[in-house]
């Protein structure tokens, strides 16, 4: 089983829900990769593969770009 976790950060802070994603993936004992628009520094300890998009270029709030990036991630 492979899970894609889509984490979110806002103003340099990871949203609460994103922590729960990590916990959920751990509980399911599944292989997971994470997608995040933001800085790596905001992440807690995470062992999976991380696809990180740059805030400056992707923007904190930009549904169209984010959607495309996520689809790209899924393709990989």
């Amino acid at each position: 089983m492979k899970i894609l976790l889509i984490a979110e950060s806002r103003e340099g802070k990871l949203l609460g829900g994103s922590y729960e994603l990590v916990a959920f993936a751990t509980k399911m004992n599944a292989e997971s990769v994470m997608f995040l628009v933001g800085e790596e520094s905001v992440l807690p300890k995470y062992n999976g593969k991380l696809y990180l998009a740059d805030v400056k270029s992707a923007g904190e709030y930009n549904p169209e770009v984010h959607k495309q990036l996520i689809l790209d991630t899924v393709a990989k």
Partner: protein
Amino acid sequence: MKILVCIKQVPDMESKFKVDAGGTWYARTDLAWRMNEYDEYAVEQAVQLKEQVKDADVTVLCIGSDQVKETMKKALAMGCDRGAHIADDAAFGKEPFEIAGIIAEFAKGKSFDLIFTGMQSQDRASGQVGVLIAEMLDMPSISTVVHFAYDNGTVLAKRELEGGVKACVKVQAPVVITCQLGMNTPRYPTLPNIMKAKKKELLSLPVQDLLKVAARQQTAKIYFPEKKGGGTVLEGDVAEMADKLIRILKEKTGVLA
């Protein structure tokens, strides 16, 4: 301008709910029915937009048995121009993808400039239908909108985000808007409008003609949340209460182990 408002008839949340025999939905007995709260904001916004641009035609759509026509009449009395009733006695069992599919099929080729839906229904609360409709019709969507403004084809909306943050979104119509509490105060229909509503077009279409997608999820079970034990209030003087607390912590938790 053509506007579509999608509404749902839901039980009043003050009703006494029981799980039905199948265990996958609530029983329909002893329930009072009304328009989904968020859909009321959708209807109100559609009517306000119509009043603003003058030349507009608002269609209200609802899926369900004949009983939902009562709720549609309220939307017509609030100012919608015509009703499209998708007759489906089993609508309550349909999942969001099917519902969105039915609506998208209805809306296809009708070139609606704006589609308003509630941000979620009060009974199923999936919050997916509006957004799925937009994807199916290849339209942009703005969800959980708390403020809506329209000017010459441009929609300026404020969305509610977590933590009290709001986002301003600008988009060109056509667009799907899902409406959240705070967007407006739905009007109370006036008597002349209630009377006019009785004469407005309210067409019924069989759901079979519009349901072209297959369900992707099914409800396995619905149940009441387990009753969690209530809090215990400790009484007595401070020393006594401290003793009681230590005893509870020892007996019931591992904190002091």
